[in-house]
């Protein structure tokens, strides 16, 4: 319920197809954090995919269709927030580029892009969040997803929020900024190279002996968690939103009900 004269900002949650399909817990954690930041969360039903797979595959036509659909679905909301660096970058940086050549559509996309934020960036840079609902006792290491890092410059924000989690010990692994080898279809098209890259990532993580590996992109997380699981590692994986929101009921990624405590 609203108190006072200023209404709460209305934030559209861009769920992302991977969260929607593979790990709804992240969506709920993101919603909890956005609400804790004093906003109302709306989840437009007409959203599906940001269009990255088509766009990165060179299919601009399909990507534009999905872009128009997405922008329409989020019309009228104050912000669009995604728990994914790559999806947020797609909406924020690449939608305007997709519309180049059509000045009206481009202007529209630019206006849309202004409202788009990656989750941690929204919480820290827009809402000035300093305290978080969650708590976690243990060692945590953080992997920087490439798009969030290089396209949106998201690096300090998740770390700042994680440092605010009572009990959490943040340990940096080597090569946090090296690609984990997901890259969308790359992981299956060039699976052997992808495997070499994710093996290196897992080794970097293992060297700092974390309880948890966190990241801001589910693609990275499915890739790394899948490899850690195959290696029989004790390291568990979650999206950073789950830890910040204190939403730890769901088992870690790929761990199942019989999996470890983290």
């Amino acid at each position, binding site marked *: 319920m609203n108190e006072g004269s200023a209404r709460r900002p209305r934030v559209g949650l861009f769920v992302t197809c991977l969260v929607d399909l593979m790990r709804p817990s992240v969506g709920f954690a993101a919603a909890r954090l956005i609400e804790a930041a004093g906003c109302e969360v709306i989840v437009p039903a007409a959203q599906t995919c940001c269009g990255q797979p088509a766009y*990165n595959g060179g299919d601009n036509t399909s990507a534009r269709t999905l872009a128009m659909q997405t922008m329409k679905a989020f019309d009228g909301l104050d912000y669009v927030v995604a728990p994914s660096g790559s999806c947020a970058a797609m909406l924020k940086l690449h939608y305007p580029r997709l519309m180049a050549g059509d000045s009206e559509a481009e202007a529209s996309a630019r206006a849309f892009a202004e409202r788009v934020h990656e989750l941690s960036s929204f919480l820290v840079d827009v809402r000035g969040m300093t305290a978080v609902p969650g708590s976690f006792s243990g060692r945590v290491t953080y992997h920087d997803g490439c798009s969030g890092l290089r396209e949106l410059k998201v690096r300090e924000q998740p770390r700042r929020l994680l440092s605010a989690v009572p009990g959490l010990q943040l340990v940096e692994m080597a090569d946090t900024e090296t690609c984990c080898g997901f890259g969308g279809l790359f992981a299956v098209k060039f699976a052997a190279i992808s*495997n070499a890259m994710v093996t290196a990532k897992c080794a970097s993580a293992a060297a700092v002996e974390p309880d948890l590996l966190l990241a801001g992109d589910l693609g990275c997380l499915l890739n790394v968690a899948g490899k850690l699981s195959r290696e029989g590692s004790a390291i568990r994986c979650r999206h950073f939103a789950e830890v910040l929101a204190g939403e730890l009921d769901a088992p870690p990624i790929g761990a199942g009900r019989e999996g470890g405590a983290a």
Partner: protein
Amino acid sequence: MTDRSTFEAAIAAALADEPLQLALADVPAGFVAGRQRARAELPQFDRLRRTARDIRDHILANLDVYLETFEANATKAGSQVHWASNGEDARRIILDICRKAGARVVTKSKSMVSEEIELREHLEKASLDVVETDLGEYLVQIRGERPSHIIAPAIHLRVGDVAKALRLQHSHLPGDRELETPEAMITEARQVLREKFLAADVGITGANFLIAESGSAIIVTNEGNADLTMSLPKVHIVLTSLEKVVPTFADAWPLLRLLARSATGQALSAYTTIVTGPRRQGDGEGPEACHIVILDNGRTELLASDLRPVLRCIRCGACMNYCPIYCSIGGHAYGSVYPGPIGAVLSPALGGPSATAHLAEASTFCGRCEEVCPVEIPLVSMLRKWRMRDLSRPSPTSRKSRALLRAWAILAARPRAYRMAARLGVRVLTTLSGRHGRLRRAPFASAWTRYRDLPAPEGRTFQEQWARRKRIDRAEPT
């Protein structure tokens, strides 16, 4: 030039090649760490990159005038400028110069353009004794290989490989000689190649930059081999390509400040030489003739296309040093003259699209390449453009993933159908995973599960669960 299936075979071979993997593991400690240090020591590093980008863009936007200016000034300085539309032209011009000079021995310093046109092979077929003098190039020459990196041609070799190659090649030397250390190998190579330097009739170098205002060439090495190549013989040939021209020395310095730092982490390479014309009156040494051969070979087409920014490249090699794919498979697996990210963008334009356009597929778009490029080439966008070109003319091997992508896009454009398919898919996957929370084997995703487990979904989609919670919230009394 290879096609996709040869590429895949080359990748598999490279990943299984343990000595190669050990050699590649050194790249981060060497070149990458070097560049980080150099960048930390130069506060204006990133500002210089923007300057360098703008200089290169200005040149490309006025390329015809700069080339004319260069030609006029080089001619005034006593050089002869030759123009080559393609490799065949360039090879013919150079062989002609060598024949007219009565050349028997030709020394060469490193030139990626010469690799592009397979110059050495052509000259050797004409019975010329051609020797690569850059140590790394010499090693790949005697091993019958191509360079695997544009700055460090023999980066794929370990110390033992080098010793073996030298013993095989220098069979005239005592077989029991000590050749354990890099120092011993360098001493031997120095002696052997010194004879060639002194015997050479023609010396062929590349050029890092051509200076329009003076008609000069700037040639950069760490060994000093280019200097010996260009000053001792009677004839000096510079082989280079048309985008190398730079307006003035004032414009060359920012590029030079970035080149070595980006390549190896040195502030400047050991020998940066500005050469302007042949021997002058009173000079006791120097070539009698200086020829400058300027190659096109597809660059004018690049200039006209939306890939123009790739012509900014100053050939530092940073992109491949930082590329996780290059560092996994090495340069040879690319099967192209230029490997790594720059190779994936440039090669299809030089050799014809069908030959190497598949290289653009082997990228996660992580973006490290463009983050370190000294002239800010938007390499990821360039790779994406090659994928767009492939879309209109899909190669046989990309058809399957194209079909998948298309199906996904069609589904995603229909939210209701998407939600239904998603609900179904999630239930199926969750059931298959059981209590384990992951799938070890998934026939529909075997490429994934060959190396990794596939984490299980959570039984219901987010949209389903969210809609349900909203219904519960609405149903509750206020």
